């Protein structure tokens, strides 16, 4: 399939699924749409990071949630916040921008920390080590209640972010009858997506991007040609991790609270589903993948409500996750190149 055809297919699916949102929801479809697009923006940032790990470099990273979490916790704990059971407020804090930079660096460093032992391992071992690292991260955050608020989480940190919200968004939010706070998160997220896409477009066919793809194809050949495959992989690990960190920070601002349970392995699997749906290795894949994924999730909730007349929240969530599982299986079997992926560069069919 030609590039243009793939884009048309992607656009058609996006328009269709957004149309479905309006069709299925009589009340406040715009509010649902803004909510959906916020998550889609945030998750596509994360999927862009994962795409660098897996799509470009071929590394099976199943600990992506932790990279998101490290970024979120580092940044949020550095700005004014309230953590823990008592929720004692910490008024002191760094300026937001500096805290975000430190958060991104922290994610990159965690990527390096996980990468160093894992990088020499074969694919499936790397998968196990990364998912284990992400669980270690989650368990430690849960455990260190004094610092991270443990299971009680962190609250009251959004002001510093919402205070810089431009005025015109408030009028827009009022007009659309949606939350101005969320509209701001959505705006920032999508601006970030655009920025990242521009950067990645430049990187993909650059010598560095080419070197990453060569590592993905055959590490031995890379080494035989005098290039340091381990360092390239570590760089990829750090870049992808810090992009994930950015997504984690935005996720925290979107929820307005920071809970350790956001960063369960299921989050990683979501990002994987988005990456595969969009097309592994394709730069614009995460955008399409993410919007469609969230539209799919939103619509399955309606379907679940239809199937189970007296459904409670648990059951609706259950149906949604089951369908996510089916989506992953179905994509892998029927269309492993996703929407935007090139068949010729399909990563999942060999070896």
């Amino acid at each position, binding site marked *: 399939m030609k590039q243009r055809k793939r884009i048309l297919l992607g656009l058609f699916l996006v328009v269709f699924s957004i149309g479905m949102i309006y069709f299925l929801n009589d009340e406040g479809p715009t509010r649902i749409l803004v909510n959906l697009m916020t998550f889609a923006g945030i998750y596509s940032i994360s999927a862009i990071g994962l795409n660098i790990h897996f799509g470009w470099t071929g590394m*099976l990273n199943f600990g992506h949630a932790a990279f998101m979490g490290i970024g979120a916790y580092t940044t949020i704990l550095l700005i004014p916040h309230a953590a823990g059971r008592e929720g004692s407020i910490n008024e002191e804090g760094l300026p937001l921008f500096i805290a975000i930079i430190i958060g991104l660096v922290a994610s990159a460093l965690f990527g390096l920390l996980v990468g160093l*032992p*894992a990088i*020499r*391992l*074969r*694919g*499936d*071992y790397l*998968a*196990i*080590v990364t*998912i*284990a*690292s992400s*669980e*270690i991260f989650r*368990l*430690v955050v*849960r*455990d260190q209640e004094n610092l991270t608020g443990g299971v009680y989480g962190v609250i009251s940190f959004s002001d510093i972010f919402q205070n810089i919200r431009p005025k015109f968004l408030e009028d827009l939010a009022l007009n659309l009858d949606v939350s101005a706070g969320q509209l701001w998160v959505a705006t920032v997220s999508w601006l970030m997506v655009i920025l990242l896409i521009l950067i990645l477009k430049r990187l993909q066919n650059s010598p560095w991007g080419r070197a990453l793809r060569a590592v993905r194809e055959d590490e031995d050949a890379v080494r035989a040609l005098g290039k340091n495959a381990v360092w390239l992989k570590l760089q990829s690990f750090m870049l992808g991790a810090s992009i994930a960190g950015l997504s984690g920070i935005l996720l925290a601002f979107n929820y307005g609270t920071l809970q350790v349970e956001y960063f369960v*392995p*299921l989050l990683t*699997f979501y990002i*994987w589903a988005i990456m*595969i749906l969009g097309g592994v290795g394709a730069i614009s894949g995460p955008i399409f993948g993410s919007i469609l994924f969230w539209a799919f999730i939103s619509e399955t909730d309606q379907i679940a409500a239809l199937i189970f007349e007296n459904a409670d929240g*648990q*059951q609706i*969530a*259950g*149906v*949604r*996750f*089951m369908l*996510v*599982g*089916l*989506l*992953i*299986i179905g994509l*892998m*079997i029927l269309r*492993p190149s996703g929407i935007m992926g090139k068949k010729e560069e399909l*990563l*999942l*069919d*060999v*070896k």
Partner: protein
Amino acid sequence: MLDQLGNGLLLGIIISVASVALSLLYGVTRIVNFAHGEIIALGAIMASFFSNLPTSRYIFLENTSPLGLSFEISLFLSILICGLFGAVLELFVFRPLRRNEFGNIAVLVITIGISIFLRHLYLIFASSKPQNYPLDLQRREQYFIFDLTPRNAKIIVYGILIMVLFGLFISLTKIGKQMRAVRDSTELANISGINSDRIILYTWILSSMLAGTAGIFQGMINDVRWNMGFLILLLVFAGTVLGGIGTSFGAMIGGFVIGIVVQVSVALPFMEGHTEAKNAIALAIMILILLVRPQGIFGKKERIS
């Protein structure tokens, strides 16, 4: 510390049985099965469905009640169902994938999809509330140096028995030998007249039955939950990797060590008040082992990088 040693032995047995199953499957089919945890949970949930009283009604939506069978029969039926389920997975999912030459990564991702699907299927049908088997409460007694209830002591004995039987099966019977042959080289096995498809089917059945057994043990010691399999899966991976993935004996020992480490670490001075993080210790050990001895403690030196 000694209190914890008994608990450690119990958890060790469970992880050990589950690790042996995972390792066997990996050895023969090269599948890293993320859905292994859900097969573990299937055993536990089925046993709960068969054995709980119809009046208890806390499982399986409003219109399906538990059957109230005797626990021994429930146990037997559940393990059988797990085996059957393994066969279904092989026949309807993994054999077709093999025929179409799906790569290892693709299959791994598919097992993740299956895991997510099944886990939430359990959530819907087996409810989110933890459940228990209809077994009497028992008082702890002293066995040798361990403090255990008689039932838990029995679990340890049965667990060891199962693994001895498994060891004998894999090393003495014809099917066991053929499994090892396929594990070493599918092509060679095919050339020497072994029907590798059939052996892989048997492997799925055996692996799933062992996993189900581990799940029932886990359900007896703690409780039955929809997500219990996923909670224990990483520890099972740790046990498998520690012993050397693909070696049954290694997985057996590795699983034991992980179980004991997890429970005994609670008694360590620096872990005081941090019992929730005990699994992190086991996972960290796994990563360390991979760092210094990537093939695991008992694994043969094979290229893993």
